[in-house]
């Protein structure tokens, strides 16, 4: 039986099809889900994709976080299902209080689009287990509101409990506190990050590497990790 990973499309989602393709490349079956539904269609894991849901009105991800299907997403997350939020999906996860903190406009006011170096800070989550602890990876980053913030007490707790999943290396692109690029929850099943693993899963379409142009596929391990996590629970 192949593992089924749902990708929820919201009004204004852009990278839902890319996420589905990445899931297929990883060897799982992508399942297209709809924000207005209350049905997760029995999927084994979930991806909240990137984009600009509701035109980033109110706050990025805030209106999408109130979508009908988010009730089921919260229940599934509480039950331990692997949930990955990418970019706008990460913003939805913090707005839904599934991850701590918030995301604000980039400190330099610029929309940033670049191949971004990251360090894997927590390789014990459902979406990072196929990485080595401390591994350096490169995946694309593209956002206007990726500045991660939290109050001092929350930040201390996040750092103390090892909830930073990814940190920016080199230049901090958006003013994120402590160079935070992505987070996990305490249980390790819910992960969110601003950069885009789904855009680095197929040779010819990923970031440049020392080996060849556009050959970077560091994003594959995110989906391989989730597949391994689901398989481990089923076994």
């Amino acid at each position, binding site marked *: 039986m192949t593992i089924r990973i749902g990708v929820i499309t919201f009004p204004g989602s852009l990278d839902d099809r890319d996420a589905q393709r990445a899931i297929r490349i990883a060897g799982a079956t992508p399942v297209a889900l709809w924000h207005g539904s209350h049905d997760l269609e029995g999927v084994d894991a979930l991806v909240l994709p990137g984009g600009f849901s509701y035109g980033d009105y*109110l*706050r990025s991800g*805030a209106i999408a976080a*109130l979508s009908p299907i988010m009730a089921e997403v919260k229940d599934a997350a509480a039950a331990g299902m692997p949930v990955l939020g990418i970019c706008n999906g990460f913003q939805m996860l*913090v*707005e839904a209080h599934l991850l*701590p*903190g*918030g995301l*604000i*406009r*980039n*400190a*330099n*006011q610029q929309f940033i689009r670049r191949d971004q170096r990251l360090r894997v800070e927590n390789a014990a989550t459902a979406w990072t287990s196929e990485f080595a602890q401390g591994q350096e990876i490169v995946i694309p980053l593209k956002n206007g509101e990726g*500045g991660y*913030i*939290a*109050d001092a007490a*929350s930040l201390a707790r996040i750092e103390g409990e090892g909830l930073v999943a990814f940190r920016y290396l080199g230049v901090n692109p958006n*003013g994120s506190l402590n160079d935070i690029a992505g987070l996990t929850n305490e249980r390790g099943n819910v992960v969110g990050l601003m950069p885009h693993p789904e855009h680095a899963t197929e040779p010819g379409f990923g970031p440049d590497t020392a080996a060849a142009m556009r050959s970077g596929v560091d994003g594959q391990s995110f989906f391989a990790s989730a597949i391994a996590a689901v398989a481990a629970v089923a076994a």
Partner: protein
Amino acid sequence: MPTIVVDVMPKAELLDPQGKAVAGALARIGESAFSAVRIGKRFELTVDGEVDDTVLAQARTIADEVLSNSVIEDVVGIEVVE
């Protein structure tokens, strides 16, 4: 019809990149009297009928839970305007 006005501001201790950009522009055009700018949001909630305590309590709840994100913003005012 009565309107409930909700004002939301980014938390004072957090960076407000928009306000900072406007402050920079003011400095460039020689408006030196203003040392800082912060940008917030004003919501106008139109109410059908009277604003009683129940409606005002509902407004407070959505101000805290929907209109603002307490991690990054504060609700700085809720008032009824006829």
